[in-house]
């Protein structure tokens, strides 16, 4: 892990994945540092994936206590009260994650992430946040963007049968294989705030309904001062009212955001394990790609809905001005 070459131990352990992404990518992974906030089921899956992949370090932030709900979709928490009593979610998950790969340094950072300064985020190559309010997402994204070093930024949220990933890689230069050649590419990613500010009318016609639905719920929680995921079917009238306002403001038809979809997102706030596995897997792949600098990154939203089984990418960004 320290020298330039992979050790014999690493080569033996990582053989199968080196055959996928190459030794060079593996070396970069082993030097990378990942920050993770919000230890729910999907994030647990993601952490498992990157620890197995052999990143340099993973830092976990989640001061919440272990609850019944936390146990339901998070396989890193063993249901033994003696083991988790007095510990935070991050601490319990940390213990389990260490077992998956002794070569990865897994640790816990305590405190309110909103108060962490820009220099703190500068220690990492990728920051992944979940269970964050709209305000928190914007704040952390901005701090990451302030750094001259590129810190890859991701949000991930799963509600019932749906899951969403947002990616911001700022100015990203990477390489990819085209036929037999290696091609150099560059992409510019908008911040979270800029992305969600893109007028809905300006977006391509067939954008996933889930994008809009998630934005409505997000804004509702923000307006009502709720914690993320703290909604129920009783909120439906309020949400429908907000939808009407937003659609009017954006000059789009309300049918773009079906009632049934909003209902599902309001009711099924807990995570669904198969979706956690899928979203955690996609997110894991994205972070690995971004660290290794190889392969087309996901730009900039990914949605999955188990009801129709589609996993799709949406590029939500300002349409380029016609020159």
């Amino acid at each position, binding site marked *: 892990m320290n020298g330039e070459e992979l050790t014999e131990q690493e080569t033996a352990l990582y053989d199968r994945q080196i055959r996928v992404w190459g030794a060079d990518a593996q070396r970069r992974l082993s030097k990378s540092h990942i920050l993770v906030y919000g230890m729910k089921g999907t994030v647990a899956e993601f952490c498992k994936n990157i620890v197995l992949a052999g990143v340099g370090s993973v830092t976990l932030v989640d001061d919440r206590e272990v609850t019944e709900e936390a146990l339901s979709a998070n396989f890193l928490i063993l249901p033994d009260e003696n083991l988790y009593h007095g510990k935070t979610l991050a601490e319990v998950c940390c213990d389990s994650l260490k077992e998956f790969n002794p070569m990865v340094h897994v640790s816990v950072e305590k405190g309110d992430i909103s108060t962490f300064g820009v220099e703190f985020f500068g220690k990492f190559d990728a920051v992944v946040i979940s269970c964050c309010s709209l305000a928190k997402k914007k704040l952390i994204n901005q701090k990451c963007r302030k750094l001259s070093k590129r810190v890859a930024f991701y949000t991930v949220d799963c509600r019932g049968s749906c899951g969403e990933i947002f990616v911001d890689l700022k100015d990203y230069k990477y390489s990819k294989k085209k036929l037999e050649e290696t091609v150099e590419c560059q992409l510019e990613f908008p911040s979270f705030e800029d992305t969600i500010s893109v007028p809905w009318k300006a977006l391509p016609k067939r954008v996933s309904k889930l994008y809009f639905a998630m934005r409505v719920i997000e804004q509702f929680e923000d307006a009502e001062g709720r914690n993320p995921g703290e909604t129920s079917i009783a909120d439906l009238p309020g949400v429908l009212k907000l939808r009407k306002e937003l659609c009017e403001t954006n000059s789009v038809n309300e049918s773009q955001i079906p009632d049934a979809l909003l209902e599902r997102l309001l009711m099924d706030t807990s995570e669904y394990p198969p979706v956690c596995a899928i979203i955690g897997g996609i997110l894991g792949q994205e972070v690995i790609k971004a660290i290794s600098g190889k392969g087309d990154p996901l730009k900039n939203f990914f949605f999955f809905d*188990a009801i129709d*089984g589609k996993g799709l990418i949406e590029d939500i960004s300002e349409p380029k001005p016609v020159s």
Partner: protein
Amino acid sequence: MSSEEQLSAIKGAKVLMVGAGGIGCELLKTLALSGFQDIHIIDMDTIEVSNLNRQFLFRQSHVGQSKAKVARDAVLRFRPNISITPYHANVKESGFNVDFYKEFDVVLNGLDNLDARRHVNRLCLAADVPLVESGTTGFLGQVTVHLKGKTECYECQPKPAPKTYPVCTITSTPSKFVHCIVWAKDLLFAKLFGDKNLENDLNVRSSDATNLSEHSEDVFECRKGKDIEQYGRRIYDHVFGHNIEVALSNEETWKNRNRPRPIYSKDVFPDKLTKENGKTEKGSATDDVSAMASLGLKNPQDIWSLAENSRVFYESLRLFFLKRQKEIGNLTFDKDDQLAVEFVTAAANIRASSFGIPLHSLFEAKGIAGNIVHAVATTNAIIAGLIVIEAIKVLKKDSNSYRMTYCLEHPSKKLLLMPVEPYEPNKSCYVCSEALSELPSPVISGTVLTIEDLQQEFSCRINIKHREEFDEEREPDGMLLSGWVEAPVDKNNNKSIGNGESTSSALSMEEIQEGEKDVEIQETSESAENVTGKKRKLSEVSKGTIPDHSGLPDESSRNQNQLEKLDVDDEDDELIISNDWESLTKKKRL
């Protein structure tokens, strides 16, 4: 998603998982978290170090233990109150029969080879149990659902068979590196270190003229007391020098091809080797005997020069004779045998050099020789999630929502996960559909039908003999099948050599002998509700004739009034022996 109906369907379900590897670990974890309470899991493998990058239920300390058992123990740690029954066994064992499968509400496959997948597919069809199939390679994966009569079975679409190469390409005219690997592994390595009694296409005689000279010596015979270096040079010169010259002498072959150049050891190493090797007997305490270590070659990703490859060739040969003498004569290539991999890499590279084919690193060569499937945890996790989603649909009998889902590396129309509706069964699928085509005509008494089942590597001949009467009680079908199994025929010149699947080796005489002891006959009822596989031993009789039926023991006569079918994977001839025998015989009677 959390509807009452769904929860109770999951809670009460009995699920069979086949495979506790890459997909299996992820699947077992997700099933447990999703509320499944009765899971059975079959896997015959034990845990290896290279599994640990993705089979996260296993630890270093578990290496060597049963995957099924360790997976179960690991999941019980976070779901202590569910039932997981592990079987450290081969899914092809007879104990896993139709009755076993019938107990389950759904079967979930996480296998890595075609052979086992076919086996499970057929048993699921026989038991009429839904099957969710899956597979991953690198960033690619897919999940498919199979319900008898409603969707395609796993074999409705032909699956690509493992690549095989014509013998002459391997022995005389390689054009790709993989050809050199197959040569090095299945011919040279086998000849030097494997069973001496096996047939081998490598030219072993040192005579120039013909192979018939009685006095030519077997170059490969290593006489005791002989200097290993001399032996090594002799082998080297023979296979890389002499054999190439012999091949070159046939002008025809090289009309439209680049000529190979012979390579002799004196050109690469004019001096004695032991001086150059430096460290020779360093630390014989180490278990891992390695030519690379001995020669100071550190990086398996490096591409060695011809000289370096030649050094590795000699050194690995020397180390085999020096440190592993006892194993010589019994060795088969194993991708986890470092010394074997080194030898095969070196030999393949020298041959490649001779033929102008680009050289490869040990890392790459090992992947090719060992048929290593590249694999990562993330794809397996995604596929596992998709499997569980389909399994739940199956349990809810939500047939309109069944999907085959493809996990792509590059998005297609924005989609990374692409669901597709399953297809209807293929009407001419020889596994799951009914009867098939007509017999080639005319079939009359005395006709001999030659049948080849390419899938089972099995062929036989059936003599058709007409008889006027059949006992209604003892022979209700109006026909009888009996006979004997002929010893395998000698391979003809058209055989091919394969690099082999990860779990099966290239074709050999021995394998055929084992496979041909029983003739497998599939029975279907007239209404085609059940397909049961039944193995039947054919009684041994004198060669070439069908015996008088009255003298046969009961076990060779059928006792069900059913359509009998000999399953054949031959596009042209699919054979049924109809129970409408009378009309058939009436038509054909002279």
